[in-house]
């Protein structure tokens, strides 16, 4: 009976069929133009001279050095920000104190700073003309135009990723489970490990995933502090830039295709996580 009615009368919140087709059609066309076409173009350009040429460009020693530096940078920056995110979310979500929302704003700050400015600030602190320039020179330490600067700039631009994922998640979960554990005599570390960590592990993974994608792909901030020394301070995105500016298009797009694969894998894992664990999306805003 009710099915008959449903078939005859549209629900008040249903749009007419032509409107649906129009909206879905224009959305698909827009996304194909803006998102899919660039992705396809990268692979088309990479394989323009055949798979051999593309593989050769990726196997080039400078390209391999860039891949290695990108992996090293992410291997330091991502765990660093994960530990920071866990500390910050424990302090913020499990305790009450004055100025909490201001602290959250400060943690979010790197998202609203231009990547170029993010690089600039470290040049002003650690560069030759910077605050610590002379001291670093005297002690034979190099941060700018070297790997530590690249790692620092990467940590800065990916700073909020894990924290902003975990803070809303932990706030939503409340403190009652931890209070129960502590009142029964569990130590703080034990409570964290056996009660909190299992509750937030998928959210943590989600944050780490996004953090890693940005860490491996960061360009502006790293470009300012790197000095572009081939084989030494070139990350993959910087290597892409150098090859592109030298009109080595096959090489540039071959390395770019590797980064595209990273992006696609990130999106697939992220979608799989969202489907399996709908909570992880709970705290996500626009980033």
């Amino acid at each position, binding site marked *: 009976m009710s099915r008959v009615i449903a078939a005859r009368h549209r629900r008040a919140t249903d*749009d007419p069929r032509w409107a649906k087709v129009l909206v879905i059609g224009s959305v698909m066309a827009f996304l194909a133009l803006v998102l899919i076409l660039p992705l396809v173009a990268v692979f088309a350009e990479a394989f323009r001279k055949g798979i051999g040429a593309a593989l050769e460009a990726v196997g080039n020693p400078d390209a391999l050095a860039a891949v290695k530096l990108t992996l090293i940078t992410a291997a330091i920056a991502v765990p660093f920000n994960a530990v920071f995110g866990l500390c910050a979310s424990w302090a913020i979500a499990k*305790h009450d*104190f004055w100025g909490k929302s201001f602290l959250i704003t400060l943690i979010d700050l790197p998202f*609203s700073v231009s990547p170029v400015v993010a690089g600039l600030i470290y040049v002003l602190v650690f560069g030759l003309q910077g605050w610590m320039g002379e001291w670093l020179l005297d002690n034979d330490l190099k941060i700018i135009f070297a790997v530590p600067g690249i790692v620092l700039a990467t940590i800065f631009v990916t700073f909020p990723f894990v924290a902003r994922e975990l803070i809303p998640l932990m706030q939503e979960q409340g403190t009652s489970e931890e209070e129960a554990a502590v009142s029964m005599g569990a130590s703080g570390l034990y409570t964290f490990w056996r009660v909190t960590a299992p509750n937030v592990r998928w959210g943590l993974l989600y944050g780490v995933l996004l953090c890693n994608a940005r860490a491996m792909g960061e*360009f502006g901030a790293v470009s300012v502090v790197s000095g572009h020394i081939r084989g030494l301070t070139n990350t993959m995105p910087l290597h892409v830039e150098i090859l592109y500016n030298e009109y080595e298009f096959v090489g540039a797009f071959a390395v770019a295709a590797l980064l595209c694969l990273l992006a696609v894998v990130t999106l697939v894992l992220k979608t799989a996580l969202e489907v399996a664990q709908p909570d992880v999306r709970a705290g996500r805003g626009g980033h």
Partner: protein
Amino acid sequence: MTAETAERRPQAKRPLFRRRSAIPGFGLTMGVTLTVLSLIVLIPLSAVVLKAAQQSPAEFWSVATSERALAAYRLTFGAAFIAALVNGVFGVLTAWALVRYDFPGKTVVNALVDLPFALPTAVAGIALATLYAPTGWIGQFLAPLGIQAAYNPVGVTIALIFIGLPFVVRTIEPVLRDAAEDVEEAAASLGASRFDTIVRVVLPALAPAWLTGFALAFARGVGEYGSVIFIAGNMPYKSEIAPLLIIIQLEQFEYARAATIAVVMLAVSFTMLLIINAIQAWSRRFA
């Protein structure tokens, strides 16, 4: 008397800034959070302000408002504004299609919306430059029409459309999902047409989220570097964005000048951040 002191005592012992909690680890995690935040974000950011402040106010003003800098701000803010508007339109349509309609490939579309977050900006930059160059897949159709899409402000806008899209979609989506459909049903049952319902009931309710998404996309566009420089052409006074101007000053070892432009951009970013927070506080009053 004794009863009175006993009553007062716990209050006197309570720290001013924090309510006591049974959960341990506040001191440690808060200490780590504040230390890392200061060392990575706050102190380096203050370096740029102090560097800019080394100049006299007159010098600062003349650098901040030089012809070339003003041209760069106009391009950066103008392109970011137009791109955010375009995303404002297609972002709403995309969010609407994702929340209200079922269509084949919806999961893929949903994952794809986040591509600009996952794809390294330099990769997006060279892909867009290749597509929209006069010989590119899209550029070759625009060239006979007399439209040049790459290496000018149009190219900058195209890159910023790519970068900003997810901000609008992901800000509107949850609001649309939580919106009560019974309001729309009420409007329909009172005789409003579907069009009237959407324009007068649905869209006004989305306004705060739309503004937030617009502001986020705009703020991101203003600071964006990697995806823009390949397609911009980078001609002084014509297609040179503000972040690039910082890099150019830096390459000429004009640190104070670089810091000056950076301070102007930081001021804009923080203003945007305040506006976004204000919009969100304002929308919560109606929630």
